[in-house]
């Protein structure tokens, strides 16, 4: 089930809210755990077993870590086992076929593919449960002794399938002790509606433009169309993902949880270093806390730091998907970040603000080309089109049509990327007009979003072909 569906909005969510409100305090986590399992099983009736395996293993490992009978060596082994179980599951489902294809290509073998579908959310919940074990091992978190609370932490439906990746630390206290105030609930509704609108109105619609352009042979695209296309993709992926994060954060608030922010106006970045502090923050923090710093971070000399940056960025790349273009995408950013650390940021500091924006935006967009096509020749073809190397003109009728039919949407997208991410928290809201305007705005966004959701299922049967 996805949040942006009628089934979730008008059946699942009201049912969960009702159950949650009606149940006594001590059963609330159980309600969340069970409804989250139902939420997951709806989309993955079989693979739910894998999530449960990962949950039970890490719960038991956590208990063992907190048992004083185990010495340092055993504790180390426990953490290693947990990492092996989680990464093992993740690799088997996500990377096995990629490895097999490449081994077959390289050695001329013909190992059969597993052809398994990727279980929904596996990249998120494995990371989340690993963070728990590592935190307990490090002593920054206490082991959870209540399996219901732990289950609720891993399976919590608001962030289960697409993050933000919640580190156990942030949630430990809230699992025991939380209260939903009116203010929090209303803030949650606001965030949810904004997230829904981002996904349904902005991401999906600009996605249609990218769909048209990426479906056209890149050899025939004019320069302007190619740039329009990749800009469309950049907006689509941002509003899709950050919309989903907003919905997750909003739903969390409705049940009394405060998750960390996942995006902070990434397209206002003035360097790539800046961009990655603003984009998918929960993943960046995860790699920083559990990979980069343990590897020594920047404390062991520039050489080691280079190595660490490259490792982190190759991992970040393949976390996004099992194919070479993602690895290349990660590496691409790794190299740029190294350049910025070495000298780039100092140079940029001297440049005017708009130069910094252009610099960052162009590099980000080129990055999206690497990200968008999983076949490398297509990446090359598209880049050629963007830089006019395919012999096509600067613009043509196609770019004009795509341009004027999307101009209003593009203006909205730009505005929303600059202004419309993090809501001011409660203290900033004052004045009656403002509150009411805000209310009206949410109502309008919600109803328009629902009409797009209904339309998405509009499926007229026509004697169209015959």
């Amino acid at each position, binding site marked *: 089930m996805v949040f942006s569906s009628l089934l979730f909005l008008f059946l699942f969510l*009201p049912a969960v809210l009702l159950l949650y409100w009606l149940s006594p305090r001590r059963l609330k986590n159980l309600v969340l755990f069970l409804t989250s399992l139902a939420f997951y099983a709806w989309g993955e009736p079989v693979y739910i077993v894998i999530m449960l395996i990962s949950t039970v293993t890490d719960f038991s490992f956590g208990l063992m870590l907190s048992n004083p009978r185990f010495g340092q060596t055993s504790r180390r082994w426990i953490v290693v086992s947990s990492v092996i179980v989680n990464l093992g599951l993740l690799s088997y489902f996500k990377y096995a076929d990629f490895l097999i294809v490449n081994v077959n290509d390289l050695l001329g073998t013909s190992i059969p593919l597993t052809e398994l579908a990727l279980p929904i959310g596996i990249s998120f919940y494995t990371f989340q449960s690993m963070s728990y074990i590592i935190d307990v091992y490090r002593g920054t978190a206490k082991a959870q002794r209540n399996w219901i609370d732990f289950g609720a932490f891993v399976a919590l439906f608001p962030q289960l399938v697409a993050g933000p990746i919640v580190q156990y630390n942030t949630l430990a206290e809230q699992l025991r002790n939380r209260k939903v105030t009116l203010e929090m609930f209303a803030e949650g509704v606001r965030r949810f509606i904004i997230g829904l609108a981002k996904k349904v109105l902005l991401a999906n619609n600009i996605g249609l433009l990218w769909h048209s352009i990426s479906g056209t042979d890149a050899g025939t695209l004019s320069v302007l169309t190619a740039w329009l296309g990749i800009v469309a993709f950049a907006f689509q992926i941002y509003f899709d993902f950050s919309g989903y994060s907003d919905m997750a954060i909003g739903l969390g608030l409705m049940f009394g949880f405060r998750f960390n922010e996942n995006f902070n106006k990434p397209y206002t970045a003035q360097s790539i270093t800046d961009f990655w502090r603003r984009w998918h923050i929960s993943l960046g923090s995860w790699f920083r806390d559990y990979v980069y710093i343990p590897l020594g971070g920047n404390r062991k000399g520039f050489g080691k730091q280079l190595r660490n940056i490259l490792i982190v960025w190759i991992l970040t790349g393949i976390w996004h998907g099992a194919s070479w273009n993602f690895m290349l995408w990660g590496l691409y950013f790794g190299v740029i970040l190294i350049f910025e650390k070495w000298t780039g940021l100092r140079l940029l500091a001297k440049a005017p603000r708009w130069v910094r924006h252009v610099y960052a935006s162009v590099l980000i967009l080129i990055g999206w080309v690497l990200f968008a096509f999983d076949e490398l020749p297509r990446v090359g073809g598209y880049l050629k089109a963007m830089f006019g190397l395919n012999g096509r003109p600067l613009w043509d009728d196609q770019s004009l049509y795509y341009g004027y039919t999307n101009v209003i949407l593009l203006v909205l997208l730009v505005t929303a990327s600059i202004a419309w991410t993090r809501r001011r928290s409660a203290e900033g809201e*004052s004045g009656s007009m403002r509150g009411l305007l805000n209310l009206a705005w949410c109502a309008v966004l919600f109803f328009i979003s629902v009409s797009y959701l209904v339309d998405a299922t509009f*499926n007229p049967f026509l004697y169209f072909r015959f």
Partner: protein
Amino acid sequence: MKQTADRLLAGGFVATLFLLSLTFFLLPAGKFSELENRYLQSAPHFTWDDLISKNFANETESYVTDHFPYRADWIWSKSFMEQLRLQQENNGIYNGKDGYLFEKFAEPDYLAVEHYADAVNNFAQKHPDANMTFMLVPTSIGMYPERLPWKAPFYPESDVNDFVADRTQAGNLTFMDGFDILRPHASESIYYRTDHHWTTRGAYYAYVAYAEKMGWKPLGENDFAITDVSDTFLGSYHTRGQFSGVKPDTIQSFVPKNAVHTEAYVADTDSKLDGLYDDSFLQKKDQYSYFLGGVHALMTLKSDLAHADLDKLLIVKDSYAHSFIPFLTQHVKEIHVIDVRYYNGSIGDYMKENGIKEALLLFNTATFVGNGEITKLSN
């Protein structure tokens, strides 16, 4: 004040969720959607197998969306928003000039087109004793690209027709390009503005061209009583695009003044039609089914002609033929009509069994390139 706003927002949101959910359960579930012209998903039945295979989840989701309260109004409102933001297309339909709606036509996969054209050509070569005509008619976007929204991209259907013409050169096969037939009449109403079919007038010009090619004397316009049978036709393009302010089309019938009696037999249901037209469809969504009562896999039309130009004709076709076939009943005693999508037997065998030596293949360009069913000719 902040608290009032919060209360309204939280309360309003929750109330909306519960109210719509309640309405969903209370409103009677319809079975058929006129707007979408299809049966709606029926209430899902739970079985463990369906749960494991996600069938249950999928059916439930379709059920909820199909029966969502005030569905048509939500859809209308989305289309309205799209027009507000200057979008010139909705669900693959362009909102063109002069009230015309068009279906997008993109460059087809020429490997597939080659395959389909070869199927036609091979079919002719396999039946050297029969005469065949292949008429490929453009759809409205092919005829009127200048009526598309400003700068809208399109692929010329004439390129496809030329390509197909080049590959269908068997000795006993004549290719008739719909562009040659219809272009001289482009300024007339030869296509519906809101539907993907040609009008009866468009079909009439095609009939004239076909009759001349066959060496028959076509009936002139004066030989027909031309009447408007409907002026409320909102066709498939309108259904898909849902643009507001669209003017409905008029459906005309061309009834010969010297009418002949035709017996229409539908093999699918082993039943006879009352005539060549079914008035009951003029009250429904799908008004084009007025012609021949819609799609049938196999039908035969036997006409009482004193002097027939031809005894037997096989027509392999899409729905463009429906408004075209009535004209031929003035010339041919026995017309056998096969819709390749629904007919699964061997068409070659059918010709042999019925002693048919003359065939017409009639398709529009969009159907022809978008559909592999034509390869059934090779069965």
